């Protein structure tokens, strides 16, 4: 066994650990993944020290494994998130999130004259740049850049 270290959030037997979530976006991740609506045990810690992010959050979800497609939806708010898939207290797989090709919901179109800002229309974007994320609105065809991005 490796050097024992104090865990801020207790271990889970089976499930998914999402690490390196920016502390400020923890609740957005919870919302995007619908964690507020599942009934298995979830523990999370936030404002934990992180060399990379300053303050990070970690979420441990028992008994749930995500499809890549679902987990990639958090890429806009937690681009550096790392996933550990846990089986019987062991990490059996590690994953990183990837910005998907299309974003449905999640982000707001920055164009104040866009229909999605007038009527209850679910936003839809095509990702035109993944590095410095840029989204092209399916409706008004205007680009929303990372700096202007607002998460719904």
């Amino acid at each position, binding site marked *: 066994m490796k050097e024992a270290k104090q865990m801020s959030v207790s271990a889970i037997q089976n499930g998914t650990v999402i690490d390196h979530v920016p502390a400020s976006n923890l609740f957005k991740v919870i919302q995007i993944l619908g964690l507020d609506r599942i009934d298995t045990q979830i523990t999370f810690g936030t404002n934990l020290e992180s060399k990379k992010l300053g303050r990070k959050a970690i979420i441990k979800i028992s008994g749930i494994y995500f499809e890549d497609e679902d987990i990639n939806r958090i890429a806009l708010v937690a681009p550096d998130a790392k996933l550990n898939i846990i089986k019987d207290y062991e990490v059996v797989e590690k994953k990183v999130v990837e910005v998907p090709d299309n974003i449905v919901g999640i982000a707001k179109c920055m164009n104040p004259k*866009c*229909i999605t800002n007038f009527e209850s229309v679910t936003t839809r974007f095509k990702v035109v740049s993944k590095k410095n994320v840029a989204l092209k609105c399916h409706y008004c*065809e*205007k680009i929303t850049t990372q700096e202007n991005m607002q998460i719904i």
Partner: protein
Amino acid sequence: MKNRSLVSIDDFSTEEILRILDLTEEFEKEPTRKLLEGKVIAILFFEPSTRTRLSFESAINRLGGKIVGFSDASSSSVSKGETLNDTILTVNNYCDLIVMRHPIEGSARYASEISSVPVINAGDGANQHPTQTLLDLYSIRKTQGRLDNLNIFMVGDLKYGRTVHSLMMAMSRWNATFNFISPEELKMPDEFKLYLDNLGLKYYEHNDFTDIISRADIIYMTRVQKERFSDPIEYEKVKNVYVLRNSMLKNTKPNMRILHPLPRVNEIHQDVDSNPKAYYFEQALNGVYTRQAIVCSLLGII
């Protein structure tokens, strides 16, 4: 193309665009036919645009179709606070096709997704106006005999001008060279120049409206609008600089034609009108044939 909507020029492949242009040619030969008899077309104009509306109405009337609709949101239930969603879901029960113009961008795409009948976008804010682009393409092909390898000059408001953006994107399919003439404040936005860069197409930018137009196959004029300027003095300086006069056409190519989406204010001097190179009124007429082709094609009639 039956039961498809036309929201953005990019909705049509190159083959589909050419098919519309070929059909337009047929309607030009024979514009009065009873093809739309028994059809009801809703023309919903949430903001006024008399020219575009009359062009659609003329196109449909000549083919024997019936029209319902409104020409201004104040005379519809929109003024009572009805959502676009509800307007479309109601009106699509009354008609075979919807033509709509709306000040909000993306409204036509949204309408096309909820409507049970095809939707033609007749302008959604600063976004798209594809029937204008198709009639521009028709006018170019008709006057030049081809669409390939042409030198297109665009003059005036290249920043906010929706028609120049759509036409530029469309003409990029046929290896055009572009020359952009505009005041500094109204230059072609970077995103469109990037688009041309990515395709490897050549473009040149100019501030001065000079002899360089002698190289043009098409000069596409647009209106420089006062409301685009935050400083009224800047507008006064600019407004008389980008005016095309008959004397400037001396050295232009014989095949060159002048296009303008209309309405014009003073950017084309009236002394140009009698020059055979002035084509903007014929262009407006081509709009009727183009819209006949689009409507019939989306209804699956031809």
